[in-house]
């Protein structure tokens, strides 16, 4: 997977999480995932279509999701409540939206779907041209995971020297 596609998502997650959760974030483990993805708890999925195709899953365990929702809304929440699910979806929306804006401004054209709660135990399997990268972000409210699998679509892949980052 091209680092030029990934870096905007890392920058965006770092910025959005830091700003929203009012803390410094630290990037923890980064790994390539070749096995079928299994969510860790409460997960939001955002699909991407256009010059880039793929998806981003934003994932955290139930305890972290509850703490994050309580912090952001000021209301007591439990791990399965709609407010918690909505909070995780909106965080995913802000992170992906900000990264997409950056890539769009560099000439890459694509659209994102509204985030949806990811309830399946499985995610999308990585492949030769759609590897999944998993990153952990440490925050004061717990660890959040971003799982990215995307690729240039065929038309875009065949274009030379797409971006210089």
């Amino acid at each position, binding site marked *: 997977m091209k680092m030029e596609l990934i870096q905007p998502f890392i920058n965006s997650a770092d910025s*959005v999480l830091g*700003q*929203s959760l*009012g803390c410094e974030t630290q990037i923890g483990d980064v790994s390539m995932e070749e096995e079928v993805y299994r969510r860790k708890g409460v997960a939001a999925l955002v699909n991407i279509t256009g010059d880039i195709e793929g998806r981003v899953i934003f994932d955290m365990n139930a305890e972290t999701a509850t703490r994050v*929702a309580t*912090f*952001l*809304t*000021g209301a007591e929440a439990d791990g399965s409540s*709609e*407010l918690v699910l*909505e*909070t995780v*979806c*909106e965080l995913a*929306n*802000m*992170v*992906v*939206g*900000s990264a*997409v*804006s*950056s890539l*769009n*401004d560099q000439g890459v054209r694509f659209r*994102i*779907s*509204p*985030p949806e709660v990811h309830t399946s135990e499985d995610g999308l399997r990585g492949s030769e041209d759609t590897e999944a990268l998993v990153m952990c972000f440490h925050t004061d409210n717990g660890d959040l995971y971003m799982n990215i699998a995307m690729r240039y679509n065929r038309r875009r892949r065949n274009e030379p020297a797409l971006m210089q980052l």
Partner: protein
Amino acid sequence: MQFDSLIRAGGEPVRCLIVDDSIFARKNLAKLLQSFGCAIAGEAGDGCVALTEYDRLRPDLVLMDITMPNLEGIEAAERLVRQHPDARVVMVSSVGCQENIVAALQRGARHFVHKPVKADVLYEVIRYVMADTIQAAAVVGGPIQ
């Protein structure tokens, strides 16, 4: 952070319609608006509902997300302003690329605010968009997180 209350010249609070498919985002925006002394006229979860709710509620200001099911925000803003040329729409979205910002402004939106929304930025944008109708009043609001 405290803000001067945004009051219309007649002494009434600015009435806002919040359009976002995320309940969390709507709650967050409502909390911010109330800290500015604004009133929440209503909420809508997509562009289609926003159009009907605007007709019913006639708010002073619409805060509109972009990425939503059924009818996206930029298209909804365009239809809204076509039907109500005096409608004041501010786009509030995480997808703040230049293309979207330009498209939104060309199609009728008055301004654009990036998510995550910063309270001071939203406040200044509302003051700017509502400049001809509001008067600053007493300081309201408590700490905003």
